[in-house]
């Protein structure tokens, strides 16, 4: 109900403001001649004037209304009730609120509760009326002021456009705020973690065994290296799967395939890019893992169903479309003249590709490769489901491993205290992950951009 009233008041203000601004300027046009701005801009500017104070008052009420009401309820309660703390006090306040709302409370009510409920009801009605009146009045005052400003020489359009521009700038600033938020929150929580565990033990420790959460103590070992090694091993396997397949696909599609085949195959491969990672994780767990384990049995290798190999293979499949579409773009940027020159000298198409096109496209492909590695490092759900979560330093890819991302999930989703080092370590891991991907991305983007400039 209340929201509807407020919405109606705001809508009325908007409509009224636009109408007044528009008709005043329109009238002026007939008497005083040409205006600087069209009437619609005068109308829009008046709307801006009307909404700013009205919204400011509503925001103030949104932020401070609740505590004001609470203070009022507390002042109504008898001293001995108000002196309670914790849940008892909350119950008392809620009972008064329920009585005030008219729903009532079950059982007997004390006299003071009924009185308080009655007063609170009056207070709520009065407060709401005051807020609505203040909103409407400030809006109306602003409209009156804005109407007074309307004159043939008022540059309403320019003023309105600068308001629009400020809004646009504010929206672009969200991106910076997000980065700042990520860096600040990761750094702050990671520093809290480093007050428990020294950075040297964290970055160079070879044992990961964080123990259980007990606030204030950091029992256990927080060595990053086993996790980092697991992450790297899976990324390497993923690249071994995806680089040849993705690159060869791109080469075939750009150099050999007929346009018809290209139109048919490309979207199907790109379907792989749109599949949620949790689906790949399930695929790895249910199909690929058992298949690889069976394959291992058949050739006499001990391959575990959840292992670095399983997670890496499926992650490689996930990255294929990423590599193929990036390399596709890059291969097509190689100037046609280079290709034609090579073919004209009698080289076969494959010789042209291997000796001319690939070397020319190499920097771009390296950039694509680095971007793909950064994706593989940050991928979470596949490894959560299929890597086996066993944080030990092992060289064997057939054994289960754990990664940085898996550990972040494990440390933050258990029954742990947020302030304990067992939870805070997730932020130190996140910071490491963020730093690694940032470096990879910056280098990759730099290489790709340089490469693009080379042929433009």
């Amino acid at each position, binding site marked *: 109900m209340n929201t509807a009233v407020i919405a109606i008041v705001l809508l009325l203000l908007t409509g009224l403001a636009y109408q007044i601004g528009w008709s005043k300027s329109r009238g002026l046009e007939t008497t005083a001649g040409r205006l600087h701005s069209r009437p619609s801009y005068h109308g829009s500017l008046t709307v801006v004037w009307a909404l700013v104070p009205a919204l400011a008052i509503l925001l103030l009420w949104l932020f401070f209304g609740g505590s004001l009401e609470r203070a009022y309820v507390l002042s109504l309660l008898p001293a001995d009730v108000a002196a309670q703390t914790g849940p008892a006090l909350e119950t008392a306040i809620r009972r008064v609120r329920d009585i005030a709302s008219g729903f009532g409370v079950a059982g007997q009510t004390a006299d003071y509760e009924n009185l308080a409920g009655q007063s609170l009801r009056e207070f709520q009605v009065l407060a709401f009326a005051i807020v609505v009146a203040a909103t409407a009045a400030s809006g109306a005052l602003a409209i009156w002021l804005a109407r007074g400003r309307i004159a043939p020489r008022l540059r309403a359009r320019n003023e309105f456009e600068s308001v629009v521009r400020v809004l646009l700038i504010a929206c672009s600033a969200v991106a910076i705020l997000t980065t700042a938020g990520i860096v600040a*929150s*990761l750094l702050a929580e990671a520093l809290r973690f480093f007050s428990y565990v020294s950075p040297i033990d964290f970055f160079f420790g070879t044992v990961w065994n964080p123990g259980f959460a007990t606030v204030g103590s950091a029992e256990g070992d927080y060595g990053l290296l086993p996790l980092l090694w697991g992450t790297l091993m899976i990324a390497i396997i993923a690249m071994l799967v995806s680089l040849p397949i993705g690159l060869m696909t791109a080469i075939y599609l750009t150099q050999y395939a007929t346009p018809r085949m290209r139109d048919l195959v490309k979207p199907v491969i790109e379907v792989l890019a749109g599949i949620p990672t*949790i689906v790949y*994780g399930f695929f790895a767990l249910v199909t690929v893992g058992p298949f690889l384990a069976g394959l291992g049995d058949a050739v006499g290798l001990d391959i575990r169903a959840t292992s670095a190999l399983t997670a890496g293979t499926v992650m490689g499949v996930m990255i294929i*479309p990423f590599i193929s579409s990036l390399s596709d773009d890059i291969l097509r940027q190689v100037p046609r003249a280079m290709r034609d020159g090579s073919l004209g000298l009698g080289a076969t198409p494959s010789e042209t590709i291997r000796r001319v096109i690939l070397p020319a496209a190499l920097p771009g492909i390296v950039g694509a490769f680095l971007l793909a590695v950064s994706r593989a490092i940050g991928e*979470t759900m596949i490894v959560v489901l299929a890597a086996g979560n066993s944080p030990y330093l092992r060289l064997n890819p057939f054994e289960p491993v754990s990664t940085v991302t898996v550990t972040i999930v494990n440390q*933050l989703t258990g029954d742990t205290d947020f302030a304990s080092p067992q939870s805070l370590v997730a932020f130190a891991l996140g910071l490491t992950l963020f730093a690694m991907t940032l470096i990879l991305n910056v280098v990759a983007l730099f290489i790709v951009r340089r490469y693009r400039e080379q042929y433009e």
Partner: protein
Amino acid sequence: MAEQFTISPASADSSGTTERLARIRQGLKSRHGRERRFQMYGIAAIAAALGFVAILFGMILVKGLPAFTQAAISLDVTFDPAIVKVDPKPVQAQGQSAADYQRALLDWQRQVTLVNWNRVIENALRTAAPDMEIDTRQALSIVETNERFKLRDMFVANPGLLGQRVNVSMLGSANVDNWLKGTINRDLPDSQQQLSAPARQLADRFAEAGRITFPFAWHIFTNVDSRSAPAAAGLAGAFVGSLYMMLVVIVLAVPIGVSAAIYLEEFAPQNRLTDFIEVNINNLAAVPSIVFGLLGAAVFINYFHLPLSAPLVGGLVLTLMTLPTIIIATRSSLRAVPPSLRQAALGLGASRTQMVFHHVLPVTYPGILTATIIGVAQALGETAPLLLIGMNAFVAAVPATPLDQSTALPVQIYLWQGNENRNFFEARTSAAIIVLLALMLGLNAIAIYLRRRLERRA
């Protein structure tokens, strides 16, 4: 070197020429062989990639489709007054406060709940198979545990059922479903079977008699998740949670993203700050999604004390995650607008803002729409950041008021795949994946359709 390749037919030294020709032919042969092999590698790579798509979809369809039909037992249930012993339903008296009536109604409902509904079900089972020797627990194990609440709700809605006999279709338990569909090995010894031997016999007998059928399992879409009654678990809660999050994403990410793209592409002066924003956005697009989850846990949950597991928080995190995608895609479609359009508008005296909003932006609507759908589809499938803001069990030193706890579709998939009843939940998880993929495909289809329409009109 050059003369080695000159082939002169009128050469006197004909033996040398043939030898040279043979060598060239030999070389050509191996070069062509290499060429063919190279092409084969390309075809093999494409086949591998297409094969992965086929295997992935095939596996999920094969596993998931059977889960959309589920064993249901049709039983004649008698609401026997000897078992259903309850007072008449209370009526709100004149002058009774809402709270007091609520209390009385709840008391009555508690009474109804305390009725031994299992007994009612057991009687119905025994009437259907009077000669079976089976004890109560075994008999009840073939019906899903929460079907008794179905009877209770029927009774609460219509107390006039007392003493009557109605035909009710009840869900079979997950184990019956496994047994009849053969997802559990029928030859396993008794000790490894989930159902006792008499219960298996009863299930087989009902199936033969046509009492157990496999209708389409609508409850997958209408029920919420359930741990105690796995056969009745559904996606409704997760679906609505995802829907809320997508609404938050659309309401926040699209206006902010498009505005940011317009500013950066059309208004921003070329200076350090703009460069910084650009680098920033490019990097944000490649930041792992889990880092956004960490941001949500640290800022929204721990700092602003927003409730855990709330779709609002999930939506905010996903908004931040999809913003770069939308900004980058919108910018590229703005960049594709021919400069002549801008010059024409400016030349006729339009201001920069007018030029952008009246002339450039309308041309890019199809592009913005595609960008939005790509972003929403990406957000719809994202799991990792949601785990960190408590979309599953997450207890922290945060004074959490779990107001609107919810999961999302991908998180539901994550939770189901971890269920202990693997035989049943593998199919159920695949079914949930089919639903999720169908939603994403639907979104993309809508995008393509709208895009074609808009482009035709433009």
